[in-house]
């Protein structure tokens, strides 16, 4: 057990915060989707690490479900993006405010 | 549960009288032609009246127990039963409801042209709801009927009302709803504390801690005070009345308002005796304000119906004063005054509806010199005016005198203040009568005959006559009606066990409020 569990968690935390930065800062919608994928992967890493160190399978099973959710989310997100793009050819986030209250 | 007497009659009389109008409403559903709808509605209301008639003669006046009782298991898990019965207090209101419903159907014969089927269905469901409230002895059943009443009334005002009817109906609905939601909380508390039962009689026997009674009383008070319209929460009544169609305001004034006072009698006083005694003084002050305030506002009214609405705020002030004088005369006077008010104000709204059909205006200034134009109508109206003032010989006097007597006996100052209400009452009613019937006639009615103001016709006389008969019957021989109440009111007062004096209860009130903050 040379590489302690904490390192893995720190690694996933770092990647996760980079994902958060990506999502909040970037203007391009696709990049935001990608950073969400990034965040999800970082979570997967920590899950796998936990599963390995705690010698229990629950972590890996969860990774599966995270992946399915990620896939579904990506598909739907991009579909919406394309639908929106049809009548308003921009994917810059700060121009899309149809939902304004 | 020993003090109930099961129904010995051949048919389940109470269930029939409550659900017959509902069946009527269903039958109406499948009718198309307005005329047929009217006659069937009339048929059903009269049928309900006849079905509930045997209640009167084989009602046993000597006992305070609930009679004609029917109990059927409904929702066993929470021990909810279909528990129905009446006693001295609620029997008279049944007949007031059935009678007024017949008159409502009659008075809106020509008044309602649009969507007549839905109108009559609303009235029939309304009647079922009201009868349900008076007979139900299970909190769950009571609450269902209590809320069920609101919807048809909401529709009646909302659809067939006057100009800003939507505002009035929403206000009416919200007012009553807020109140009854608080009551629901009270019911639930009672359910748990009273040993997981919703049966009103069982819950009345249990002695609740004073602190809890204090809050429960407030919860129930919220619901009933709104319905009675006691002073601060009365502003929905004038709006609801001015916007409601004739039949709507007759039922509203005739029966709906009595629910609040009936609630006090059936729930607040028997179940929460100590809290009632604590709250006697504030409620009496509110009632006296209602009497004087209601009367004063009447002087300033321009609209005919609004004036009568405010006058019923004043009359209901008398009723609550009587009920919370907590002696036999006061309570019996209160109950009788509820009946009288239903008859007098119901009849008055019928009359307003009748004249409104001809002149299509409710502004008092548009009227004048109608005694010559419609002498028979004027004659009937003068009887109603004097009944509403409480002239001896009419029913108003008996109720008011007993209430003032009860209030005077309880505490002299209350009687004196209440008696001022009579003078104010005479003031605004006679002034109203003079402005409408005496002064010189408005030219356009008389000369040009633009609005052919024809006198009251046979159908309208039939609508008014039964109420006039009751006005004089109660006025001359009130014992036929008072005898029903004696034992029930005696029992109500007895288990109130007024041990200490009023003063002592007052500082208990103050103590409770201090603890609050």
């Amino acid at each position, binding site marked *: 057990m040379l*590489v302690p569990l*904490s390192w893995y968690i*720190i*690694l996933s*935390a*770092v*990647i*996760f*915060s*980079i994902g*958060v*930065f*990506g*999502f*909040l*800062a*970037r*203007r*391009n919608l*696709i*990049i935001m989707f*990608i*950073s969400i*994928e*990034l965040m999800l*992967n970082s979570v*997967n*890493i920590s899950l*796998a*690490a936990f*599963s*390995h160190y*705690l*010698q*229990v*399978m*629950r972590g*890996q*099973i969860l990774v*599966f*479900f995270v*992946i*399915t*959710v*990620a*896939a*579904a*989310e*990506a*598909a*739907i997100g*991009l*579909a*919406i*993006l*394309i639908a929106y*793009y*049809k009548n308003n050819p921009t*994917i810059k986030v*700060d121009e899309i405010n149809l939902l304004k209250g | 549960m020993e003090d109930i007497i099961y129904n010995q009659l051949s048919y389940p009389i109470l269930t029939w009288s409550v659900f017959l109008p509902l069946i009527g409403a269903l039958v109406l559903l499948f009718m198309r032609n307005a005329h047929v709808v009217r006659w069937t509605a009339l048929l059903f209301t009269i049928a309900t009246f006849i079905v509930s008639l045997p209640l009167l003669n084989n009602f046993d006046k000597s006992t305070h127990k609930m009679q004609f009782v029917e109990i059927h298991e409904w929702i066993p898990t929470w021990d909810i039963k279909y528990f129905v019965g009446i006693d001295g207090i609620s029997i008279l209101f049944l007949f007031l409801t059935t009678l007024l419903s017949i008159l409502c159907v009659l008075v809106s014969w020509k008044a309602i042209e649009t969507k007549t089927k839905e109108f009559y269905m609303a009235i029939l469901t309304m009647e079922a709801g009201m009868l349900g409230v008076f007979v139900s002895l299970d909190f769950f059943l009571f609450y269902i009927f209590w809320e069920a009443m609101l919807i048809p009334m909401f529709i009646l005002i909302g659809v067939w009302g006057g100009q800003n009817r939507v505002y009035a109906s929403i206000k009416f609905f919200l007012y009553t709803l807020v109140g009854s939601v608080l009551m629901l909380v009270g019911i639930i508390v009672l359910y748990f504390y009273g040993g997981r039962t919703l049966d009103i009689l069982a819950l009345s026997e249990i002695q609740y801690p004073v602190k809890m009674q204090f809050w429960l009383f407030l919860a129930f008070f919220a619901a009933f005070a709104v319905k009675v319209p006691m002073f601060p929460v009365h502003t929905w009544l004038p709006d609801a009345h001015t916007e409601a169609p004739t039949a709507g305001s007759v039922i509203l004034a005739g029966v709906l308002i009595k629910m609040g006072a009936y609630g006090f009698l059936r729930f607040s006083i028997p179940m929460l005796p100590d809290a009632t005694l604590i709250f006697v003084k504030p409620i009496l002050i509110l009632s006296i304000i209602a009497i004087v305030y209601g009367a004063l506002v009447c002087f300033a009214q321009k609209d005919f119906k609004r004036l009568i609405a405010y006058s019923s705020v004043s009359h209901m002030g008398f009723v609550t004063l009587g009920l919370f004088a907590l002696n036999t005369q006061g309570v019996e006077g209160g109950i009788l005054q509820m009946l009288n008010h239903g008859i007098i104000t119901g009849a008055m709204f019928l009359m307003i509806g009748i004249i409104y059909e001809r002149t299509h205006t409710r502004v008092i200034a548009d009227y004048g010199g109608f005694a010559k134009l419609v002498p028979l109508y004027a004659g009937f109206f003068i009887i109603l005016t004097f009944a509403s003032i409480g002239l001896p010989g009419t029913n108003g006097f008996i109720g008011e005198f007993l209430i003032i007597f009860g209030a005077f006996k309880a505490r002299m100052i209350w009687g004196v203040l209440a008696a001022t209400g009579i003078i104010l009452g005479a003031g605004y009613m006679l002034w109203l009568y003079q402005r409408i019937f005496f002064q010189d006639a408005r030219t356009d009615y008389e000369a040009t005959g633009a609005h052919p103001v024809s006198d009251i016709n046979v159908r309208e006389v039939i609508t008014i006559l039964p109420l006039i008969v009751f006005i004089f019957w109660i006025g001359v021989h009130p014992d036929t009606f008072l005898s029903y109440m004696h034992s029930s009111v005696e029992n109500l007062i007895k288990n109130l066990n007024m041990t200490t004096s009023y003063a002592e209860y007052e500082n208990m009130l103050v103590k409770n409020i201090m603890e609050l903050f």
Partner: protein
Amino acid sequence: MTLPQLFFAYFALSMTVLSLLIVTRKNPVHSVIWMLVLFIHIAALYLFLNAEFLAAIQIIIYAGAILVLFLFVIMLLNLKREETAQKYQSQWPISMGIALVFAIFMTMIVGKITVMPALGEYSVEAIKAEGSMMTIGKVLYTRYLLPFEIASLVLLVAIIGAVVLAKQRVE
């Protein structure tokens, strides 16, 4: 520094650099490609954590399917005009601040974890004995059957949604 630690250090470093690259590229296609490289590294990391099946899944689904989907969408929308525009949103320093604070918090939490729950019975040897795929299959289809079904449902909804949104474009 023992060999595994060395490997981990490499992977940690490379993955942080890669994610930074993904997030900061102006051209989305570059980000996607760097993402691909990142996924390969993650698969390798899974191997370290004795989760071969996961590594395979990672490569096949993530790299294979989702990234391709992204590429496909990028190609579909001609993003030429987007290149010129300014990359970051107006208030990006705030998001930078939040991300940093987040990272710091997480590291602090790691420091606080003291008590470890009891070890489960799936030790490394047990998995090796049966093979990672076998154990995952057993566990998945016994204890976690219901979530599995729900996951399939989620996917179904996603498919229908995508089709409906896409179809709209045709008329």
